[in-house]
């Protein structure tokens, strides 16, 4: 197909042609970036926590007054919760992935370091590995005698008595790979802050921190510390997914019966926590998707409008060409090629613009670079939309009978 006649026609419609190109370029740039942003959000929402997410329910409570025997009462609570039918395991934890609180600590591999190597989440609570369904890939879980009570740990911290502090830790593979790349972490020492040593006894496949994922989503450490409800612990129960509602209801009733003098701060399933944690991302992904679709529709309609106009305007010249021997196929491909040309120029400009917008986003929103794969995908999408939009008007043009040429010339 010779494109010279097309170019000379377009030269006589510079303004409309430029408008169409600008519209396609803008759409291309924005859709590429929007789809990229959607991908980023979906990736965020897709993160794995390493825990048995569909099997956990939690209850977070607070006392109205402060009980003196917090630890004993909590032990009684846990024992009672274990009696509920369907419950596989119960623990009291200081935090839970996607929960709103977070306890973190700075880790160093050398006592003389000035700055922390990483900031990791600090989980503690008895029986965590079993209840959260964590996978220990090397070493072992804590032994019962390794656990210390949280109030004794605090007392030890006050007095500077290292013996009252826990001495062992479970770390995730992500922590191990960051602190000792290529080495076995088992038996290695890690220091909390300026000098509390911990020995790594086991490695977890995965365990996400509760929130603040930008500090390293999988940087988590477990310490063998027992925590009581009066110290802010959350009850976490594991059961089969279909039993969760029933178990939660019974657990609340049981806790209320054991001690009515407390308030439920929060309760639900781990799935709900995840759902709530990502609701802003989901809403934003929805908005972006809506904008993409709306943009493509608006652009397609613009192409239909302009193409229809051109077809109507060139009605007679189409007739003349047909009379001179051009086939319907020739006419059809004339308009298709014209659209392809305009779209291509638009896409080329759009890519440059997309890259520019991406640079802007990198500077202002800490986003990564737009992967190159978006460019060919964006191009193919716009070509397809352009061709689909021009098909109707082009078919109408091809249907113009040669006899039109003889009228009113």
């Amino acid at each position, binding site marked *: 197909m010779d494109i010279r006649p097309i170019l000379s026609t377009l030269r006589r419609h510079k303004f*409309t042609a430029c*408008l169409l190109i600008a519209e396609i370029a*803008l759409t291309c740039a924005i859709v590429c970036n*929007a789809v990229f942003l959607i991908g980023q959000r979906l990736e965020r929402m897709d993160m794995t926590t390493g825990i048995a997410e569909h099997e956990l329910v939690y209850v977070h409570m607070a006392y109205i007054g402060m009980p003196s025997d917090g630890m004993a009462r909590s032990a009684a609570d846990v024992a009672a919760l274990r009696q509920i039918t369907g419950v596989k395991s119960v623990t009291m934890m200081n935090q839970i992935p996607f929960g709103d609180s977070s306890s973190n600590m700075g880790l160093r591999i050398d006592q003389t370091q000035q700055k922390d190597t990483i900031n990791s989440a600090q989980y503690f609570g008895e029986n965590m590995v079993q209840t959260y369904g964590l996978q220990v890939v090397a070493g072992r879980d804590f032994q019962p005698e390794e656990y210390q009570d949280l109030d004794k740990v605090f007392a030890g*911290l006050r007095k500077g008595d290292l013996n009252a502090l826990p001495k062992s830790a479970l770390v995730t593979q992500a922590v191990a790979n960051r602190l000792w790349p290529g080495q076995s972490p088992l038996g290695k020492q890690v220091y909390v802050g300026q000098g509390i040593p911990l020995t790594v006894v086991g490695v977890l496949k995965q365990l996400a921190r509760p929130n603040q994922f930008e500090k390293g989503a999988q940087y988590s450490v477990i310490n063998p510390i027992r925590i009581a409800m009066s*110290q802010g612990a959350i009850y976490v129960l594991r059961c089969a997914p279909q039993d969760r509602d029933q178990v939660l209801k019974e657990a609340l009733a049981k806790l209320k019966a054991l001690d009515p003098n407390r308030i439920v*701060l929060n309760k639900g399933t781990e799935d709900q926590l995840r759902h709530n944690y990502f609701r802003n991302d989901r809403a934003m992904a929805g908005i972006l998707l809506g904008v993409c679709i709306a943009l493509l529709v*608006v652009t397609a309609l613009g192409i239909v*409008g302009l193409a229809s106009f051109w077809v109507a305007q060139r009605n007679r010249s189409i007739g003349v060409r047909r009379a001179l021997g051009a086939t319907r196929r020739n006419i059809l491909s004339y308009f298709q090629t014209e659209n392809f040309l305009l779209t291509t120029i638009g896409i080329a400009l759009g890519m440059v613009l997309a890259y520019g917008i991406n640079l802007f986003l990198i500077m202002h929103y800490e986003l990564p670079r737009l992967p190159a794969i978006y460019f060919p995908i964006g191009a193919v999408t716009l070509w397809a939309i352009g061709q689909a939009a021009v098909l109707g008007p082009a078919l109408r043009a091809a249907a113009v009978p040669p006899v039109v040429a003889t009228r009113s010339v």
Partner: protein
Amino acid sequence: MMGYYMDLALRSLRHNKVLTALMVLAIAVGIGASMTTLTVMHLLSGNPLPGKSDSIFYAQIDANPPLSPSHHNEPPDMLDYQSAVDLWSAHKADRQTLVVESPVKIAAQDVQQPPSMGMLLSPTADFFTMFNVPFQYGGPWSADDDTHRSRVAVISADLNDKLYGGANSVGRVLRLHDADVRIVGVLKPWRPTPQFYYVVGGRFSHGQTADYYAKPQDVFTPFFTSLQINDGNFEQFNCWEAPKVAGHLVGAGCVWIGLWVELGSAAKVASYRNFLADYAAQQKAAGRIGYADNTRLRNLMDWLAFNQVVPSDVRLQTWLALSFLLICLCNTVGLLLVKFLRRGGEIGIRRALGASRKQIFMQCLFEAGAIGVLGGTCGWLLTLLGLQWVRAQPVAYADLAHMDLVMFGSTFLLAVLVSLLAGTLPALHASRIAPALQLKTL
């Protein structure tokens, strides 16, 4: 003449309903999206203390000890207990208040309601006058109450509604944690946007700042009183040394208190800056802090800007909506051009019968303007729908999303501006149509 132009425009719009609908829809959707996000932007980036924000300052010194790992170029967003109390009790500003927030258990003994968790703000007496906090009943506590650690409280309108059904509750007793406090004041509904007096840590929040738009706290008690009654429930902003007892931060190596000062003149600001620098230098000489030349005194709006209070999602949505409007504009220009040029014959006849270029131009512009007004009206309706949607979102600022008079006016202004912008070029083209050429082809 105007009536005639209007009549012509409406005739032409009716002539090709699909094309008209398409153009109106494009403008309406573009304006609806832009105005929804601009309204949210306008609400979130407004001045929470108009007329006064220039004289309100947030004071910072770098309380990190020598060689602290948490030292940065910027001082921490909050102060440690020692520095905060020293600076506050020097009374070098016109007014000054400390602020710290903590969760607290609230029970009202003479009401049949279960206890609940709420937020406690612990300012000092000047807080209420400094920030123009409106009172429904009673008033703020006195400076004496601050120093004597009086067991007094001011409660929010929401809490007053919840506990006492909105009645005057001044003089009644509230149980906070384990202590009884007497209510001395009840606020009117008060919704500072953002909750400016407790904006901290914006630079660490990665744009997720929607929570700065949360409602004010439920209860306010004097700073020093709060330290007694809610001990063990305070949260640190940052620590260079783990606190010995969780939630007890007095004397701990932690920053957790904010200091706001009111300074009425430039001279006072300058002298307060010197005061901060002198204090830091003196503390460094005493060996308590490690970085003396790291002090800041930002005014309210600068402090909000430094914390980038407008959530990045909202800014992104605004850019998105504006570029969407731009594309809709391109589209409308193209379609209008098609429409006017297609009527070349008609325009040619009018020109031949004596219409001037200017008249043709005006006629076309009227048509574009009519589309703009229609699009603007639909766009305004879409904006209301959009704001309704924002209100249904799970964000702290959702309940704020309403259209005010300014935004109502700007919507129409934008609509007409957009359509005139869209109409000018096509109308110019149409008015340049050569009548002879067009008449020949009829």
